[in-house]
């Protein structure tokens, strides 16, 4: 079906499914099919923050004093975070917006993506402070094999969905040959791609990110790189909302509360969805080996990090009906919870590197009386 930016079909959007119904026309929020997305938008917006508000200048000295293996852990971790947010800053928009049918879900995805771009910008803020020339770090992201392997696995599900959607939008259902390869386009096939993609996104935001969070906060536990940690706490708070949103989508489907065909697909592809999570866990463990291949750091090593991946995976998989495949029952990194607690993450204005908040304050204090003698 050809995409239109303003569908003139006079449809009842309360009767539309989340995806693959009519394209959204009026961006209206007075009535909602799934009110949860509107609530997530409000919550996410209330978290608005800017990387420049966090003072990372002290990190430079800390960084210089790290051992080589610790520098490797810190920088590799940051590169991986940069990769994940590069993908997340664009992919939900490109993959999901063209096939969404509810205004509240459309706006949620746009809000979500916007916050991912804040995350991306914050990595530049962090790296600029640590290096005179952060370019080399960014350049390595597209040549480092360890990172590329992960990138391939994450972007694959998005890319498959995007490509099939493009075929469907331009050529409709049927068999189409592109570049010598035949593709079968049916809505069922599209919905399957969407289902797998949503699982992969959930695995990314609910599991993969937590490995990197653990590394960041392990430095903070030693009172090192605390500016960086403050930024990652703000990112983690956003990611908590993101993973909640994809859990809602997956559960609305699985429980038959949206598109009945998606409920069938959820059942049919349960093993494949499980495999996506298991693969993500495996890759994160390999990543842990890579991080620690030049030596450990105090408070964190490969074994504990791998246990933490399994612990988190149990939680996240059970939330979407995929059971708890791993043995681990108690949290191997209990201090992680303190960093993920949203009470602890407000940016204090006095820590601000820039003073725009202050400028606003002074402006606001200029009253009409002050302007009494002022004539034009």
């Amino acid at each position, binding site marked *: 079906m050809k995409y239109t930016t303003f569908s003139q079909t006079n449809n009842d959007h309360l009767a539309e499914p989340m995806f693959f119904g009519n394209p959204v026309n009026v961006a209206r929020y007075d009535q909602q099919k799934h009110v949860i997305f509107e609530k997530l938008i409000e*919550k996410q917006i209330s978290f608005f923050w800017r990387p420049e508000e966090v003072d990372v200048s002290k990190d430079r000295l800390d960084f210089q004093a790290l051992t080589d293996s610790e520098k490797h852990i810190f920088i590799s971790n940051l590169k991986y975070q940069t990769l994940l947010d590069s993908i997340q800053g664009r992919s939900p928009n490109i993959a999901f917006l063209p096939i969404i049918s509810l205004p509240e879900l459309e706006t949620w995805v746009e809000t979500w993506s916007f916050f991912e771009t804040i995350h991306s910008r914050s990595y530049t803020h962090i790296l600029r402070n640590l290096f005179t020339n952060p370019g080399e770090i960014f350049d390595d992201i597209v040549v480092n094999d360890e990172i590329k392997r992960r990138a391939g696995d994450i972007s694959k599900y998005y890319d498959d969905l995007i490509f099939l959607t493009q075929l469907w939008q331009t050529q409709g259902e049927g068999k189409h040959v592109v570049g010598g390869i035949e593709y079968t386009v049916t809505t069922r096939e599209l919905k399957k791609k969407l289902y797998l993609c949503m699982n992969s996104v959930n695995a990314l935001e609910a599991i993969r990110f937590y490995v990197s969070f653990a590394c960041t906060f392990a430095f903070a536990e030693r009172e090192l790189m605390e500016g960086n940690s403050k930024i990652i706490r703000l990112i983690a708070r956003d990611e908590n909302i993101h993973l909640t949103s994809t859990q809602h989508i997956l559960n609305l489907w699985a429980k038959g509360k949206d598109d009945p065909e998606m409920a069938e697909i959820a059942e049919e592809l349960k093993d494949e969805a499980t495999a996506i999570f298991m693969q993500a866990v495996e890759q994160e463990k390999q990543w842990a080996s890579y991080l620690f291949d030049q030596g450990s750091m105090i408070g964190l090593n490969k074994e504990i990090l791998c246990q933490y991946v399994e612990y988190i995976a149990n939680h996240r998989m059970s939330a979407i009906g995929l059971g708890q495949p791993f043995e681990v029952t108690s949290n191997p990194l209990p201090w992680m919870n303190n960093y993920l607690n949203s009470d602890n993450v407000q940016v204090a204005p006095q820590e601000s590197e820039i003073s725009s908040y202050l400028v606003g304050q002074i402006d606001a204090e200029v009253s009409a009386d002050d302007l009494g003698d002022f004539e034009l």
Partner: protein
Amino acid sequence: MSDKKECFEINVIGHKTFQYVKNGSLLDNLEQQKIEVHYHCREGFCGACRTKLVRGEVEYNTDPLAYFDDDEILPCCCVPTSDIEIKVT
């Protein structure tokens, strides 16, 4: 909130039974009893504290945004309104 009864009992299956102390969330109460419950946000939007409610009722002090099943609760943002029985994992 019904105040017919002043104190409610919380039975954590496999751990212990204790009296709910009126201030703080159910999660705060569990922590005071040294019962480990996973959490991140403590504000009802991440779902990390999801816990099975076997019996009884709770009431939310913030609108929970996280996903949880019909037989589950989010202890970080709820309080019991009857005796309850829960299962922490």
